[in-house]
């Protein structure tokens, strides 16, 4: 599997270690992998805890020292997988964006949706399964097209 193996617990552990030991920077390289973490340096001892470095850095790139990306790249849906507003597929199947061929899609980008609103249909074993919004908000991104297969856990949309 070619994706970047981001180990969030590890990053958290390293960040904690840096706080405990009062390190400002930490950089590790193992062959082609590397990770670099930096904390804001405090001039003296007990300081309030800094925000953790980006706990889920951009896949495909070494962990960025800066803040978490606030404007994610729409071509890289995997960046959103742990986003609070991520809608993921509850099953493997064929996804439909509308109730019938030619009908209006349930949602489009910019729509306001309420918790429990229908977003998609997934067909599996000849049964049609509704995918509902797990929270209300604005549809920020849709990552799937009509009548295409989706895996379990696939990212379908973002509700912000």
């Amino acid at each position, binding site marked *: *599997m070619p994706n970047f*193996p981001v180990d969030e617990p590890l990053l958290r552990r390293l960040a904690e270690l840096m706080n405990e030991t009062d390190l400002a920077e930490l950089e590790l390289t193992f062959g082609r992998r590397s990770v670099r973490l930096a904390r804001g340096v405090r001039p003296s001892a007990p300081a309030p805890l800094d925000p953790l470095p980006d706990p889920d850095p951009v896949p495909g790139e070494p962990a960025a020292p800066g803040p978490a990306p606030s404007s994610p790249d729409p071509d890289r849906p995997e960046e959103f997988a742990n986003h609070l507003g991520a809608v993921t597929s509850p*099953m*493997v*199947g*064929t996804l439909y964006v509308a109730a019938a061929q030619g009908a209006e899609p349930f949602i489009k980008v910019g729509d306001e949706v309420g918790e429990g609103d229908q977003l998609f249909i997934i067909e*599996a*074993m000849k*049964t049609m399964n509704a995918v509902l919004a797990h929270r209300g908000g604005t549809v920020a991104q849709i990552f799937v097209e009509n009548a295409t*297969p989706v*895996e*379990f*856990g*696939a990212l379908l949309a973002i509700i912000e």
Partner: protein
Amino acid sequence: MFRKVLIANRGEGALRVLRACHDLEIRTVAIHSTADADAMHVRLADESVCIGPADVQSSYLNVPAIITAAHVSGADALHPGYGFLSENADFAQIVALHDITFIGPKAEHISVMGDKVEARRRMRALGVPVVPGAEGALSSLEELRALAGEIGFPLIVKAAAGGGGRGMKVVETEGDLEGAWQLARAEALAGFGDDTVYAERYLATPRHVEFQILADAHGNVMQLGERDCSVQRRHQKMVEEAPSPAIDADARRRVGDTIVAAVRELGYLGLGTVEMLYDDGEFYFIEMNTRLQVEHPVTEMVTGIDLVCEQLRVAAGEPVSFAPDAFAVTGHAIECRITAEDPETLTPQPGRAEVYHAPSGPGVRVDSAMFGGSEVSPHYDSLIAKLIVHGRDRDEALRRLRRALREYAIDGLANTIPLHQRILEHPDFAAGEYDVHWLERELMGRENP
């Protein structure tokens, strides 16, 4: 031949099927749970589909998800591997209903052989010797008492739907009959949702000897020799070998012919294994497994036949790739199942293999999905690898196996290699003198079940 096979399994079993498919230039689809996203069977397949979360009910046993994965990937056949859904007749039927070829026997044979009482009845009717006992399920304690009067003690009460030792009770005397009856039924109900039990003569020191069956749709029905799987703990096989050190050419041919005749009469198709107990010169049918067997490599090593390729050929309607009378058993093969378990207590110990180096060299084969840095997950079974050796004779195989066990480097993961080494060093094993209770009696410090 098939164009694309979905492999409804994981781990080394999935890899085994994948290898056969790729040997025959068939494309493969792996299915996996979220926990197995980085597993070797996923990496090596042509395509993969994530079908559910880590727990097996939601993924590897999730029939709708598996069928849907086959559909969305366009697979024209499905191989169930072993374990999971491989002996589920309903699943085989559902697969077929979706116009996907189920690579395995006909659903009716999975169904018949899945019912241990019915299997015994059918095989007996077909002339295969069975352990003296109840012809069918026992409906009352009185029937059990009557049977005990016929076949005597010791006897064993077993769950009809059972396997793996659960729901089995040995009864030594008349006085223990009632307790055993109640306990066996309760365990059967709890374990399999069905309290049907039957009973038969209890053989004290039998060997477990099983025959590999292969039948195609062109009239070829054959047995490819036996495997001796008597080294067991709690009915789990630990070491298997072919040929059996205990039976001679005459006994082998005699029971083999009987089995082939029965399987032919049954109209069986594909791979199967007829498991027998061998005690005091006599064979007794126990059950028939209607799937590829975990220990199939020992048969492959002594015959040079790729059983999974043959299984694919048969399922595609082709004849087997060799003349049934042209195959020969050459040399001797032994397999050790190495698991991530404490070698003393056999409790599973999931974890990560920091360094992993498998043995190799002449006559050594390792079937495994492990690699350095990979994990044995607590969600699934604890098999690390099957280590199989082949030698020109049993002595050469034993030497190679001792060497290979010693050469296995697995850092960071408790495993059963030390137990296998104790088995290999034991003079009884070296002499080929062991029965199904031997391991527990001699090495595990545990009384007979």
